[in-house]
């Protein structure tokens, strides 16, 4: 039994974390490219879901466990649901698609590839003052202390901002009825029915 295990490649913690990194990185990267490429809007949303889940996995590897859970709750379970709601409310059929013009696609792809090439060269040639990743597990209560200690003012400002956004988005999304429908409905319906129609 041990002889079989001895012939397999050496498994070290570095190997395991490298394998997990490649798994999540390929999942996020391929899904991100899928978001750009796919033509059906719902498939774009599903690719975005896989990207967000892959990024959450990367946060686990970077010892940001609380942030990974926040990413899953807020992004994958909140913002993405909101986006899907928007998709469902604004699409006329499940298979409608808008095709961009070919010239636009060529310009966009060339800009994107030039930027990607520049970023790659920039990252590869820079020597960052980085330490090897620490193997301790970051405690969650330290994050709480920092949020309510050093970063108290941004925390409070963000809470006010969220309140303003809630009110503003609810007001904006309520919308106004189109002009030609109002006159036909005002005579026969009660006020409450008019509000709900």
């Amino acid at each position, binding site marked *: 039994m041990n002889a079989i295990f001895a012939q397999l490649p050496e498994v070290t913690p570095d190997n395991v974390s490298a394998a997990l990194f490649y798994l999540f990185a390929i999942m996020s990267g391929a899904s991100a490219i899928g978001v750009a490429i796919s033509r059906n809007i719902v498939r774009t949303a599903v690719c975005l879901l896989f990207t967000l889940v892959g990024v959450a996995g990367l946060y686990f590897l970077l010892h940001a466990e609380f942030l990974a859970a926040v990413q*899953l709750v807020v992004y994958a379970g*909140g913002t993405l649901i909101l986006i899907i709601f928007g998709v469902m409310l604004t699409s006329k059929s499940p298979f409608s698609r808008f095709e961009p013009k070919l010239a636009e696609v060529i310009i966009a792809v060339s800009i994107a590839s030039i930027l990607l090439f520049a970023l790659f060269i920039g990252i590869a040639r820079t020597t960052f003052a980085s330490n090897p990743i620490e193997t301790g597990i970051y405690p969650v209560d330290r994050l709480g202390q920092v949020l309510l200690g050093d970063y108290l003012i941004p925390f409070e400002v963000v809470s006010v901002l969220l309140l303003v956004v809630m009110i503003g988005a609810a007001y904006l999304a309520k919308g106004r009825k189109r002009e030609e429908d109002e006159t036909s409905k005002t005579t026969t319906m009660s006020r409450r029915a008019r509000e709900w129609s």
Partner: protein
Amino acid sequence: MAMTMSILAQADQPTLFQRLVFDGTPSLLVQLIYGFALCATVFLGGVSLIAMFSIWWERKVAGHIQSRLGPNRVGPIGLLQSLADGAKLILKEDLVPKDADKLLFRLAPYLAFAPAFAAFLALPFGPDFTFEPRLSVGVFWILAILSVEIMGVILAGWASNNKWSVYGAMREACQMVSYEIPLGISIIVGIMAAGTLNLVQLGHMQGGGIHTWLIYRNPFVFLAFFSYFVASLASNKRAPFDLPESESELVAGFHTEYSGLRFSFFFFAEYAAMFVVGGIQAALFLGGWNDPFGLIGYFYREWTIAENWMGLFVLNVIGAGIFVIKAMGIIFVQMWLRWTLPRPRIDQVLYACVKVLLPMSCVLLLGAAVWQWLIIERAGIPWRDYNPWNFAEWVRAGLTGTLVTQVILSLVGIAGFTATVMWVLYAAASGRNIKQRLTDPDPIVQVPANLATAK
């Protein structure tokens, strides 16, 4: 990824299993293979077994509440009914609707089932029976991974190309996302009283007997348990909030077009999520794997010092049984509510969330914070830092307030629990003679005398 955390934190004590099975810390490759094998066999098998038992139990409970018997043909009291159902579902024809989006239609059941299964990995079945005991965001991780399930349900409704499925999916998304807020705030009230998100630490903290359970820590956590229960009903699409799959309105809501094995994935996902939610309540509020007398906590400490590994293993098995029984009790109450209460409309459901549960949970959060500020609580692990049954010592340490609160609330809890159990037993016993007959009636050979015949 959780195993990576345990691997990257070097210089650890070998866990209980590693001592019993491998006699020390095995190599990393063996650990990985062992972890995968454990996931594939024990966890998947356990989840399926729990789901199948819950399905049978639901039908039995439904039957008895409706004055009938439920499944009683297949197996001793119909226990193998779920197996028969599973075999039937596997053998059915695999239908994909003609204009449906095939890829998304096929993907949706797995997106709904995988999060419910992943949440099992964090549940504390026992102090050493947790898959990853060092997950420092245990409760929040379960909440987060259950949020991904919403996406699977929406995709199922959308990809069916059926307007009723889309209605079910949109109602479901609305409801589940809205009820996540009171769900999260109720969990925060419990976590505030506990001081840690780690599920294994939570279990150790409640190991001193029934008065150390977190639900009895202060009255706000007591009420937060009930608000969490209601919010978890809605988050699970469980009655009375089962509009997404309302049987009498939308055929089957978002999983109308699913048949055969794909439908069984949704079914399993629902019951697995019910167990996970019940498990969170058991672990966070009701003491996890601990018995009401604190014996498991006491013997765990004794035998850890004495390094009695077989004894610890037995203790873990008993603790896992207690945990499962507590979660099943909560599932029973969920089933009881399903077959008792009528179904509200979607706007009433959202009204209950935003205008009732959300302000209530905010008030509970504020109240719990003020309570903890004013009344000093006993921090530390029972049996390790203090003796939880030595009440005189509590008073000497100046912690009378919290002791009185905990004892009074636990007496209230015991009284309520006993009353409920008595009530259920009475209903079961007194409903015996109004149930339908079990066997076929005798054949009629002669027309009865009082039957009016046409002349």
